[in-house]
């Protein structure tokens, strides 16, 4: 038996402490009985919980007062009114729970963000039923998604924005789905424990020093680098190719988007080297590197990245950019695939 920490200092803190403890216990219990969820999970009735809301409690109180009034006056019509409200309450309870049961939640990925932006965890919810689902919302302790209605057979994307403040992996251990439909008398919800994670790039430094000068190698071709001196031919346009290299004349002739290839004496490329960044702090260096990478990517320059333990030769394009930024995001983290919890 572990000793229960008694909030001795302030008695006032007792109630919040009790509710927090109860909440924690209940969540722990739910977690244990539900286990981990697959990336695609259908809500079974057994895991959809329901409790009355504040409005619901007032409604119940009102119904009770009306019952006493009806009994006092032996008024059969106010009995009708009272029991009608009681019936509506009961029906609302079942309707509220049914509104969630059977929904299918599917993890739809997380867009990488820079530290300071909010990570967008995306969940697609599908309504595999013949009836409409109303007022569905995803939530965590700190954030919630938009409220949306789902028509029969419809699938909709719900986005949970989670604030980030440092680079690395962000994981969302638990989120909830809930509804107050139909009358806000009851709140019905379910907890989901999916393996949700996203990458947070370092925050790009606002004031970064000038990037190192472009190196120009003379006389020989570098691997996978396209110089700009001698026109060597055309190839199919790839995303990330500079618009300056598009063969617009060829495009006007053939309607096919082609890029000019150059093979020449001069191939320019930039190397961003972790060790060469003029800063002391590791995070500061990463931040500066992030700035250089994003700037270079924006101007369609080829760049390479060298961090201790890994090197990415000069290139361009979305994949290259992502690889570099991921390397910066996860640099030095002991266990990048362990769960760095923040939610």
């Amino acid at each position, binding site marked *: 038996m572990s000793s229960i920490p008694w909030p001795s200092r302030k008695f006032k803190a007792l109630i919040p402490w009790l509710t927090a403890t109860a909440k924690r216990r209940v969540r722990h219990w739910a977690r244990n009985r539900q286990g981990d969820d*697959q990336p*695609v999970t259908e809500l079974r009735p057994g895991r959809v919980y329901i409790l009355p809301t504040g*409005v619901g409690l*007032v*409604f119940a109180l*009102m119904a009770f007062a*009306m019952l*006493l*009034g009806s*009994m*006092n*006056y*032996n*008024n*059969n*019509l*106010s*009995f*009708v*009114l*009272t*029991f*009608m*409200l*009681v*019936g*509506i309450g*009961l*029906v*609302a309870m*079942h*309707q509220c729970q*049914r509104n969630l*049961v*059977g929904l299918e939640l599917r993890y739809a990925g997380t867009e990488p963000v820079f530290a300071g932006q909010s990570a967008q965890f995306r969940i697609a919810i599908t309504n*595999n*039923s*013949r*009836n409409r689902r*109303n*007022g569905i919302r995803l939530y965590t302790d700190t954030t919630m998604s938009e*409220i949306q*209605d789902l028509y*029969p*057979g419809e699938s909709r994307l719900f986005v949970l924005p989670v604030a980030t403040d440092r680079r690395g992996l962000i994981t969302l251990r638990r989120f909830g789905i809930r509804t*107050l*439909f*139909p*009358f*806000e008398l009851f709140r019905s919800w379910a907890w989901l424990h999916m393996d949700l994670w996203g990458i947070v790039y370092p925050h790009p430094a606002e004031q970064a020093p000038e990037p190192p000068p472009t190196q120009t190698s003379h006389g020989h071709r570098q691997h996978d680098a396209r110089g700009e001196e001698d026109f060597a031919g055309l190839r199919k346009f790839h995303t990330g190719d500079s618009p300056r290299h598009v063969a617009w004349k060829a495009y006007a002739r053939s309607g096919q988007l082609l890029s000019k290839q150059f093979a020449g004496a001069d191939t320019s490329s930039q190397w961003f080297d972790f060790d060469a960044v003029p800063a002391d702090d590791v995070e500061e260096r990463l931040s500066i590197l992030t700035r250089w990478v994003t700037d270079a990517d924006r101007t369609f320059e080829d760049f390479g990245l060298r961090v201790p333990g890994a090197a990415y030769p000069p290139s361009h394009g979305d994949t290259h950019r992502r690889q570099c930024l991921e390397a910066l995001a996860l640099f030095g983290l002991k266990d990048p695939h362990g769960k760095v919890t923040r939610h």
Partner: protein
Amino acid sequence: MAKSRGTDGSLLSSLPWTLAAGGFALAPHVVFLPVWITVAFAACAAWRYGIEKRRRSLPSGWLRAFLALVGFLGVLGTYSTISGVGPGSALLAIMAALKLLETRRRRDQFVLLFIAIFLIMSSLLREQYIWSLPYLVVGVLLTMTAWLRLSASAVEAPRQSLATSSRLVMYAAPIAIAMWIFFPRIATPFWAVPIDTSRGTSGLSETMSPGDISSLSLSDEVAFRVTFEEVIPAPRERYWRGLVLTLFNGRTWTSNDPFMGPRAHEQVAAIGNPVRYQITLEPTQQIWVFALDMPWSWTLSRTFMGPQQQLARGQPIDQRVAYEAVSYTDYRTEVDLRNYARDWYVSLPDGTNPRAVTLAREMRAAVTSDRAYIEAVLAKFHEEEYFYTLEPPALGSNPVDRFLFDTKQGFCEHYASAFAVLMRAADIPARVVLGYQGGEINPMGGHLIVRQSDAHAWNEVWLPSRGWFRVDPTAAVAPERIDSGIRGAMFDGTGAAWGLAAPSALLHRLTLTWDVINAKWNEWILGYGPDNQNRFMKWLGMDDPDWRKMMLTLVATVAVLTVIISLLLMWRYRPPPKDRAAVLYQRFVNKTGVLPTTGETPIAFARRAGSRSALPVDTIEFVTTSYLDARYGPGDADAMRRLESAVAAL
């Protein structure tokens, strides 16, 4: 703080519904409430809607506080109290109006909807007509629709909300009905709060001053309805005993008398056959309970027989009550009258109505017995120029003298008063009974309707060895009043003289039909009290019903209904039908013996199944392409046939 009071039109989707629900809930109160409250509510509603429509700002806190104070003082000034249904509903209306002015968020409207429900409830406490039931159902529907729109998305169509709330109310109805039937009714209230039920109930006057009011109202309002178990007694025997007046001050008869004691019931000796019947009495705000003369037993709670055999209840009858009673139309009562009581029943105030007193003594001296004297007085009324009229002249002081000797026109009260005075002056104990006489038989419902216009006054006279017995002097003047009711008295020819036309037969028939519906409504819905419930439970087969059994049945029934509703909802949310192609494909998948993984496309599955399944690769490919064509391709009818034959061949 103008910013926090600003509106952005976001309530436009829910506010009209909230206003409609509030207005609907207030509607039945309008006739009871002072006009300024209705006007204030309507004005606030329009004001608030205008603010939202034009994105204006809400009134300032100071203005709202000022209006709240004015409203509260207004209610206090109008009613000089704040308890009771009248002031209560007035306050609710004012609260709703003021709450509107500070409603900024959608959720603030919850308060308004709660108030709307309370307003509906208080209107039901006041009146329970047949239309009150549809009224309350519509009221609940409107309120719940408004409620739904508070949390629905702003683009949701009102029709959709109405459909959803109608569906939910419909689901709730069986639960409500079951609870209504089985919820145990109790006989006595916990506490009594006055309800200003009526727009002026016309009950019986508790005193009688013939000559003061010069006309009798001919109100058609129902006083009570009677269902007889066997035969309906003849009109001559239908005297519905109410209260008894024993003290006369020269002008006014009152019931102030010194007699006490619960032994009045023992003074009655029944003769002949009992008459059994059930009465549904409309609220009178008086304590008097009516029964056929002479009541022998009755089932109404807290009701006792007074010293003059009048029935009275411990509290005013402020709502409709139903009771069974047994009466004997032939009876003896108080054969031995004590001397002090005898003195009381012959007392007359000195110096009033001297001519009547003199006349009585002369007439008594002219005959040999009290009985002969009574006959002589009745004969005088019958043979001399006395008229029965509902609009007699006013009588001034010494009304009995003026009536007997000068005007000679009057209705039952005049004759009863004069008769009692003549008896007392001749030293014969006499008193006045107020109640109803006659009643109309509704041939459709088989019951008797007794209306306010059937109110009647008659006398009881005491003779040694005979006790008290009924004498109706009005019968001597206008026998048709007794035989065919007041309507008969007016409409069998003589009515034309009073400028009244007989109602058309069709209209009368419709009135009677409506009365049957009303009677059933009163009996089965409004009168569903402890007694009716007990009877109904027994009819359902519950032996020896008590509240425990009823509560148990209630819980069980509601549980069953809830399960049914739950199943119904599950059915509503069932998955959409799989189309024929999907069903066939599923059959094929089962045949392959390979489990598809989540999110696997048919082509990927076919590739995987091709290497693992016992089925030939060609077949798998054929079925897969046929399925894809049937489901997604353009020539689906043809592909469907191929799929069907291929799956059948498996």
